[in-house]
């Protein structure tokens, strides 16, 4: 039974971790080699594609999507999609897809004469499902080894941890003060538990009776 418990704990934290890893912004140092648009018909992988541009017809099955082809500082290839997130999830409220494509095209360069850029994105690349990370912003940087401090992630993760810790500690206090005493009474006998509950319900009961 111990193993079952650990499987659930691992599944839970794996899920939390992967949601955060998918959703939070990450920075890549890239050299844009080209940009293009391609028709896409999201199918089984439609979870990993955004909707049509804000304001356009979202009921059409297929649409054209912008892509940005790059080579990263580590010399591996990465292709990003460039889509509006609009008012949906994840909450980047990105509407400037076409502008971003124009900026990315402007930064194109060759291996002989590289122009490095910092590309902010969220999402994953997976060849087996044809999914691509979504580019959020791009700006030119001096070289391939600039240091980037992920302030947004630091702030978001700190606030998330503080928020859940606050709720967790209050829940533990609530359990200690209100639930455990009742459980302890129960072990002494159902009658005693009834008495305790009646006592605890006193305030609520008085409120019900109009006090």
């Amino acid at each position, binding site marked *: 039974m111990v193993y079952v418990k650990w499987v659930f704990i691992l599944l839970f934290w794996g899920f939390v971790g992967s949601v955060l890893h998918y959703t939070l912004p990450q920075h890549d140092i890239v050299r844009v080699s080209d940009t293009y648009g391609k028709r896409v018909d999201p199918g089984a992988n439609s979870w990993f594609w955004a*909707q049509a541009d*804000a*304001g356009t017809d*979202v009921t059409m099955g297929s649409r054209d999507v912008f892509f940005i082809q790059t080579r990263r500082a580590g010399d591996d290839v990465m292709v990003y999609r460039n889509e509006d997130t*609009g*008012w*949906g999830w994840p*909450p*980047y*409220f*990105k*509407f*400037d897809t076409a*502008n971003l494509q124009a900026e990315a095209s402007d930064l194109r360069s060759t291996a002989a004469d590289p122009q490095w850029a910092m590309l902010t994105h969220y999402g994953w690349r997976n060849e087996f499902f044809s999914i691509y990370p979504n580019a*959020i*912003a791009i700006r030119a940087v001096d070289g391939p080894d600039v240091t980037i401090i992920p302030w947004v992630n630091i702030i978001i993760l700190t606030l998330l941890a503080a928020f859940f810790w606050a709720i967790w500690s209050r829940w533990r206090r609530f359990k200690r003060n209100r639930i455990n005493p009742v459980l302890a009474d129960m072990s002494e006998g159902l009658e005693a538990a009834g008495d305790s509950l009646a006592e605890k319900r006193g305030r609520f009961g008085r409120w019900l009776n109009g006090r």
Partner: protein
Amino acid sequence: MIAFLELLIGGFGVLTLVYIALSLYSRSVRRGKLMAEWDAVGSGDRDVFVQQGLEEYDGSLRRKLILGVYVVPILLMGMIIYLVNFY
């Protein structure tokens, strides 16, 4: 447009739940503090003392600060829209 309305209505619903929960929690914390205060230095009827304290709390600025539950996400959203699209 539909997506925007979905966000607006869904967000309003969720924030209202948060607002109600936070209001009830904050009131119960205040009640606990008033009871503790009466236990320490109080005189007269305990229920009347707590009731008066809660009525005072209902008109206080502290209580109105809970409306920040609505204000903060809207400001945050405006800031994100500016930073992502126009900065």
